């Protein structure tokens, strides 16, 4: 079973997307299923490490928090652009944040969250030392950002990925 | 009557705003000053084109713009990733 369908979730998502992009019919279902299977095999040949997901609930909670955060920082950045950075008082800074996360999937998720939020940009992460370099658009207090990344996102990701 | 007019005004404003947005990202694309600035300008230009196609499709009620929007998105993604890779190493395929 593992050999035939190595990535069942990926294949299922591909079938679903194929049916969304076309219209539902038996022919399209068969075609989409074949596509999902073949891409699953190709994906196995690339041999990515399997994500070790411990619990799903922290991820659900995280996605809610992130949606709200993105909404809030959208408003904040739009206002900063409109007022020309609070009339020149905005200070953008590079920030180094030590991370405890080691799991590559969790790190990828964290990178997506940080980049998708306006106001923070992920620049580089060193795997050995675990130091992440961020750029923050409107830095008020350095330690606020460190604790925010740590408490808000990293803890939940650690819970989810173990 | 009035709701149709409001919707018409909203869609017109959306199209004008997205056209202006595309102009601003074009300005950044032309001005630079460095290669990475141009890449970001190009990326944003692709977003604006995608959203413009979505708005136009919603306004005319035809589903054809949706596929066009998808294609623009895929091409833009590949172009930006390739350009960024080129900026790091100076070559695309290692």
């Amino acid at each position, binding site marked *: 079973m593992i050999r035939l369908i190595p990535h069942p979730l990926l294949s299922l998502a591909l079938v679903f997307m194929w049916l969304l992009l076309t219209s539902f019919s038996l022919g399209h279902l068969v075609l989409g299923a074949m596509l999902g299977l073949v891409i699953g095999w190709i994906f196995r040949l690339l041999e990515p490490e399997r994500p070790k997901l411990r619990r799903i609930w922290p991820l659900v909670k995280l996605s809610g928090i992130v949606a709200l955060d*993105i*909404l809030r920082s959208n408003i904040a*950045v*739009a206002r900063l*652009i409109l007022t020309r950075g609070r009339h020149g008082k905005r200070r*953008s800074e*590079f920030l180094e944040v030590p991370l405890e996360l080691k799991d590559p999937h969790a790190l990828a998720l964290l*990178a997506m969250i940080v*980049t*998708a939020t306006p106001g923070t*940009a*992920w*620049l*580089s992460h060193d795997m050995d030392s675990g130091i992440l*370099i961020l*750029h923050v658009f409107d830095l008020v207090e350095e330690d606020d950002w460190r604790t925010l990344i740590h408490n808000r996102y990293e803890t939940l990701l650690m819970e989810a990925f173990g | 009557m009035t*709701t*149709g007019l*409001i*919707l*018409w005004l*909203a869609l017109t404003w*959306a199209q004008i*705003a*997205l056209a*202006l*947005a595309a102009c*601003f*990202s074009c300005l*950044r694309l032309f001005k630079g000053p*460095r*290669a*990475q*600035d141009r890449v*970001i*300008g190009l*990326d*944003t230009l692709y*977003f*604006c084109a*995608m*959203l413009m196609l*979505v*708005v136009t*499709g*919603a*306004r005319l*009620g035809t*589903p054809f713009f*949706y596929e066009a929007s*998808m294609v623009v*998105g*895929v091409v833009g993604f590949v172009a*930006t*990733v390739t*350009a*960024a890779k080129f*900026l*790091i190493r*100076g070559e695309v395929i290692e």
Partner: protein
Amino acid sequence: MSTTYLETFPWWIALPAAFFMVVGSTLALLGTIGLWQLKSFYDRLHAPTLVSSWGAAAILIGSVLLFSWGGSRLVIHELVIGVFLLVTTPITLMMVGRAALYRDRVAGSRELPEHLHLHEPAPPEAAPAAALPERKAD
């Protein structure tokens, strides 16, 4: 342009759709204005996220509302665009950010604070010829 097609919508579809369209396109416009007027590259890196996060999301929600009433096709088509944008934007921005950081660290750019430079002393004219092609003059 005639508004006959647009008048077929009831108000409880038309008004939210109009609201979302206006909000999304205005956010996109603000993002690109930021892209135009911000001074440093790393500030400008934040501007496109405004277009791709809630700018795109609001426009897609408006489009879903309009199409689901029109009934010409399934409503979740926009979901594919939304997921696509959500997944690809961080990748492109992250790669551009990393590329810029790498180039600036090697070249010892003044946009970076001193401790991020790769060659500690880094006087610009005495720096050894980097492995990169020289950055073009402005």
